[in-house]
């Protein structure tokens, strides 16, 4: 019980529960299976980005360029779909987007490792370069009208239920993709030497170096993984809205970083977990969904998000401080 109070995640969960009760009291349609599946589907995009961000934050870095990477990969597959759509399939789309994402992510890693530029500077720079080049090439044009099979894939449901009005709903394939990524990433972080090495590196990079960890390899992996998630995310985005717009993602980095930090990851590196991250992403998702259901004007959305972050991060930091203080005193006695 004490351990639970010590954990940041407990507070996020608490906030989620309170929020769910309040929203349901105002608009009962929040607490329905239909809304849940809907929420899961639309959250998959941010949730996928958040996986990559979690890896980067645990390793002690940060990536501001992933939205630009996702814009580049998204635009690339959109162009390919429009030109050669009939000879392509879903696997190929994921392969191209993911592969290109990994490459761009690793480029970040190379800059960060060899030139020892702090990751925040490096990735702000590469964000501008990737996004700038794309704007030049694309001339800011929106792309749509993808092949029918691409649209059909997005509406695949693992099982289907019908609402009272007869409208079909269910667990979307997009949500399933996110879930699979979550499980794989959880396994990497928790049960592989690679994953634990990422934590170790984020905890104390100097010690990791002395202990013989391959720091370059780890950096490549972490930013490559972030790139992969950006690539897959761009496909999810295209599936969800069936449109690729060069300006739809850049600028949304902060939401993702906030969600991951809310889930217990530290900007100082070394901490964070997949379950925590899921809570963080859920809180942001429920909040925005709930505000819409409660008919709060959308202008208030950001104010509320900010307040929730301050409150939940603040409360757990305060609790932690108190507990650590108590422990120091009892130990010295």
């Amino acid at each position: 019980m004490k351990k639970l109070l010590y954990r940041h995640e407990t507070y996020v969960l608490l906030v989620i529960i309170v929020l769910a009760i309040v929203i349901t009291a105002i608009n009962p349609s929040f607490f329905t299976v239909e809304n849940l599946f809907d929420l899961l589907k639309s959250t998959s995009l941010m949730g996928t980005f958040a996986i990559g961000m979690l890896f980067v934050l645990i390793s002690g870095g940060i990536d501001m360029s992933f939205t630009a990477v996702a814009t580049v990969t998204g635009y690339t597959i959109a162009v390919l779909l429009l030109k050669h759509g009939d000879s392509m399939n879903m696997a190929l789309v994921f392969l191209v987007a993911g592969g290109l994402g990994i490459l761009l992510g690793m480029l970040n890693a190379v800059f960060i490792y060899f030139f020892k530029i702090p990751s925040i500077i490096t990735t702000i720079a590469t964000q501008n370069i990737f996004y700038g080049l794309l704007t030049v090439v694309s001339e800011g044009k929106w792309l749509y009208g993808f092949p029918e099979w691409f649209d059909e894939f997005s509406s695949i449901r693992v099982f289907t239920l019908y609402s009272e009005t007869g409208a079909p709903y269910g667990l979307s394939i997009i949500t399933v993709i996110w879930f699979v990524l979550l499980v794989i990433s959880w396994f990497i972080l928790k049960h592989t030497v690679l994953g634990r090495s990422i934590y170790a590196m984020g905890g104390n990079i100097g010690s990791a170096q002395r202990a013989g960890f391959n720091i370059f390899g780890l950096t490549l992996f972490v930013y490559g993984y972030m790139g992969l998630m950006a690539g897959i995310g761009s496909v999810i985005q295209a599936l969800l809205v069936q449109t690729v717009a060069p300006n739809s993602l850049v600028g949304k980095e902060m939401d993702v970083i906030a969600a991951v930090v809310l889930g217990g990851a530290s900007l100082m590196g070394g901490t964070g977990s997949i379950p925590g991250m899921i809570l963080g992403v859920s809180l942001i998702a429920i909040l925005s969904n709930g505000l819409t259901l409660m008919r709060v004007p959308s202008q208030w959305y950001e104010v509320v998000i900010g307040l929730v972050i301050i409150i939940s991060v603040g409360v757990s930091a305060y609790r932690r401080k108190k507990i650590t203080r108590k422990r120091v005193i009892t130990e010295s006695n």
Partner: protein
Amino acid sequence: MTVPFLSLKRVSKQYAGVTALDSVDFELQKGEIHCLVGENGSGKSTMIKIISGTIDPDPGSIIEIQGEPVQNYKAINAIDKGIQVIYQDLSLFPNLTVAENIALCELVGDHKRYVQWENMKKIAEKAMARINVSLPLDALVGEISIADQQLVAILRSLTRDVNLIVMDEPTASLTKHEVDSLLAVVKDMKAKGITTMFVSHKLNEVLQIADRVSVIRDGKMIGVYPAHELNDKKLTFLMTGKKVEYRNFTPELKSNVPILECRDLSRAGDYKDISFDLRPGEILGITGLLGSGRTELALSLFGITKPDKGEILINEKNVKIRSVQDALKFGIAYVPEDRHVQGLINVQPVGDNIIITTIDSLVNKFRLIDKKKKRERIQQLVENLAIKIPGVDSPVQTLSGGNQQRVVLAKWIATNPRILILDGPTIGIDIAAKFSIHEIIRELAKQGIAIILISEEIPEVFNNCNRVLVMRKGIIVREFDTAKVTMDEIQDYVNGTF
């Protein structure tokens, strides 16, 4: 004599023309506890690096392990030969559990792919069983005590076959009690045939259990001595090449009116019922273990924390010290325990660090900083405290520990304090520098400043103070007149074994 486990023969090392090691001979017998002592910059770290294979010695140097000369000796060869180095910073991962810290490096070294948490615990338990210690395996390393962290670092090196453990300044941040348990562990390792090499710039408890001591000075090996033949005085002479004699401190009291009085000062969880007085020209020592309340009391006197009850009198007037600004107004200055975190702005030049406390008095009529005044003030303080610096523009972090501490002192002396609180003023400083800091402190007392010297090192308070307060669990257990007591008596009160 048997073949030594490791021997260095005529080992030299030059860095860009500067000789760090000059034809050093050094031997470690199997299973012995060996101390290498020397001042900062004497070549100790270079020796560690050569033994651990992280740097190459100059051509002509010979390294032999178990009688066999080794060629092209690298870190990986050292690990293969069972040589492990525990650095002063311990190189642990604060965010991982005890079990992981112990086992992870081995898993990485063996190119394992997956982590079995149960297996990790087994590795950790095996290592713990080897030296009869027990730590909570699931606790985060960042949340256990420094002493336990040290054990984790030792345990980590025990997961493989280890013949020699080199410990760099292992006791620097441990309390007396913790040092004792560390020494017990080392004795245990000795019984298992593991050689231990302590490297230190301090004369410390480690000497009690050492078999032999090698002394290094200015890159040259001065000699190897059986530990029981050495005492503090002799060792200090060997390390510094200078005779240093302590004279006991007798204050020249300027007046009998106390400048500072505390009456029944208490703060829950920190200290309780503290009463003492302090006269100008006195050096009052406060000693006690970490967490005894010594630093917490100082923080209250400097206005950082508020006492719950009790009175503070300055010049016989009841005052409230609510903030650091208040404390400065009353002429109180505080030199903190951790100079890097609390005392200095490391990347800033020496000069700017010195004047930071008095910058308000250096402005001209346009409220801008008067460059000339600033230069003069800095020059004067640098000379007064004999700070050795390449120039006032060099960043503080490039100075040695002793000179950094002088900069901190200078910065507070600039405020012309009437009460100066020094918290662990010589932590991490080598002996020669330490003595000169003591000289400065005595000189300040002579000028009529009332000084509170807080230190964990009993010789430090014993030799420099006329009175010593011993704190334990937040209360003052005893006040001593240093002329009428021995160091051992004070030690007993500190440990609570009276």
